[in-house]
């Protein structure tokens, strides 16, 4: 039979257990009554209740201590403390320790009925909230890490492996490869995902400012510090701190950072009190930290602390097969944002995009697609919508003749709107030769939209 909820009543008075137990059963609850704290703690190891009504005054372990220990076993258990008028102050102390509420004996039937109903509603709302957050997190997972190449598959595997752990991660890769996205994906895959991910770009701040940002400062710590300020480590409590551009911090800050990573405690700038902090650290850099160590610019002990698990994101030029996937992803993204019905990129343009060096990596590619989407016309982006760098042509010097021929033929065919006769004329070859070459290079006619 379904019940309104599972209640536990702990009271050393038999009459209270009997009468309250009976009263709540009549109300439709599944009730367990226990005589003392030891029985409650033993049974809590194997059973779960929604709400516990606990008498504050009991022989042996009292209600306050029982509440504290019950929460250690089941943090979701809602405890209502029952107290006599004389011990209201103690009950208030129980509230501060995490009790859901307290009631004074004898209990008003209407009040206790509502209190238990509200406690159950509160619990259900909390559980629903967690479920919704999990669902949202699932739906809105960082989807901007796009790629299906071998190197990227290794990155995804690494995220899946290290995400659920609490290990410190060092993400390396050139500028624009998506180090922060990887950090966010690791955070999302961790049990800390419901706590904040706090990112700080170490390279953008001066030494003094960075220390204040990381560790916080006390009022009057330096000129202009009019108020006490919490640092990023404090704000990241329970969550993840992402230290971007870690290779750019000074040796002094490296020493302070090492202490925080080792001791898990911070001291605010201008303060002398240590504060315990609970965080997971993910650091990222586009620098060669081993080289910096050799040059004496980076502390090796800090490096070893950070380099517990390393994820290297390959530059875009080493995973060119990801370029079409990325381009299509960005086209889709910007077509929605700009409300334009551009759904694809012409093969010649895509071919050109794959030939670019992309020294700014995915970020540069994204910017290029965004610009093309602004100037491009529906339904597809063409070569002329992109600005290709001159070095792309220079790079041609290292290409094979076949590569050059392929790029040139496709460009001409696209310019002729797919008209092969016209293209053959310009290329000064016959149509059959063009047909065979296009077939060889995998060219397919762009589908024509019909209305």
């Amino acid at each position, binding site marked *: 039979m379904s019940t309104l909820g599972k209640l536990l009543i702990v009271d050393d008075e038999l009459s209270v257990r009997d*009468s*309250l137990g009976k009263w709540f*059963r*009549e109300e439709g609850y599944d009730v367990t009554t226990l005589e003392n704290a030891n029985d409650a703690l033993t049974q809590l190891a194997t059973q779960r209740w929604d709400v516990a009504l606990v008498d504050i005054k009991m022989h042996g372990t009292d209600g306050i201590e029982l509440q504290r220990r019950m929460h250690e076993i089941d943090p979701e258990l809602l405890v209502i403390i029952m107290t006599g008028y004389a011990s209201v102050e103690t009950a208030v102390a129980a509230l501060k320790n995490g009790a859901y509420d307290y009631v004074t004996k*004898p209990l008003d*039937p209407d009040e206790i009925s509502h209190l238990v109903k509200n406690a159950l509603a509160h619990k259900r709302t909390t559980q629903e909230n967690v479920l919704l957050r999990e669902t949202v997190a699932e739906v809105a997972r960082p989807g901007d890490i796009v790629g299906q190449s071998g190197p990227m598959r290794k990155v995804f595997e690494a995220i899946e492996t290290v995400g659920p752990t609490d290990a410190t991660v060092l993400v390396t890769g050139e500028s624009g490869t998506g180090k922060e996205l990887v950090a966010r994906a690791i955070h999302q895959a961790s049990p800390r995902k419901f706590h904040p991910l706090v990112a700080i770009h170490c390279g953008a701040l001066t030494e003094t400012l960075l220390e204040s940002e990381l560790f916080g400062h006390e009022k009057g710590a330096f000129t202009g510090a009019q108020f006490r300020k919490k640092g990023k480590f404090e704000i990241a409590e329970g969550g993840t701190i992402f230290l971007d551009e870690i290779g750019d911090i000074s040796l002094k800050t490296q020493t302070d950072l090492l202490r925080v990573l080792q001791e898990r405690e911070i001291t605010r700038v201008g303060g002398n009190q240590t504060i315990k902090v609970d965080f997971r650290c993910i650091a990222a850099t586009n620098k060669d930290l081993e080289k910096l160590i050799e040059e004496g610019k980076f502390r090796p002990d800090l490096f070893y602390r950070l380099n517990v698990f390393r994820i290297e994101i390959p530059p875009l030029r080493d995973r060119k097969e990801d370029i079409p996937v990325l381009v299509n992803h960005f086209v889709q993204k910007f077509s929605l944002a700009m409300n334009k019905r551009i759904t694809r990129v012409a093969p010649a343009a895509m071919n050109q995009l794959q030939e670019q060096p992309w020294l700014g990596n995915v970020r540069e590619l994204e910017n290029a697609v965004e610009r093309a989407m602004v100037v491009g016309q529906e339904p597809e982006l063409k070569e002329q919508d992109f600005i290709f760098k001159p070095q792309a042509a220079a790079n041609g010097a290292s290409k094979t003749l076949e590569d050059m021929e392929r790029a040139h033929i496709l460009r001409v065919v696209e310019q002729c709107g797919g008209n092969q006769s016209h293209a053959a004329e310009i290329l000064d070859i016959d149509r059959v030769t063009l047909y065979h070459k296009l077939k060889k290079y995998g060219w397919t006619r762009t589908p024509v939209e019909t209305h």
Partner: protein
Amino acid sequence: MKLLQLLPIGNVDDGLLKDLRPAVEETFRVSCKVLPVRLDPEFAFHGERQQYHSSEILLRMQSFLTDDSWRILGVAAVDLYIPILTFVFGEAQMGGPCAVVSVHRLRQELYGLPPDQKLFRQRALKEAVHELGHTVNLTHCDDYRCAMAPSHAVEWIDLKESTLCSSCRAVATPMTQASSVRIF
């Protein structure tokens, strides 16, 4: 043949019991009789609380059970309590033979309002059906109109009706039919 018996407790009005009889007969479809005796509740009196312990009264009511009894409903004029609660409108033995209701808190006068005899009797009937419902294993009902809806204040009693909802009736009816009660 078994009967539903009404037991006056303390100085309760005989007219009220006579009014209750046909109404509970109708709801539970069993013959009902007002017992010709009266229970003095003084043994259950708590001096400090100035109230009467309903559980003790229920225990004492057991001695009124006879072979004719299907259920006994005590109707008390005094204010009832159980130790952990400030008061109760009534108490029943779940699936057992005895239940008791108090009409003390059902009067408008108690809340500083002019007397309303009709409302008082309606409230008494609803609570009588409610406590008897517990004796046929009914727990509280989510339907606020059902007599088995929980009511810890008169305002809630006024919201509900004196009859059982179809779900509660479906549970209660076999209980009366299984007993060899005198069905009128």
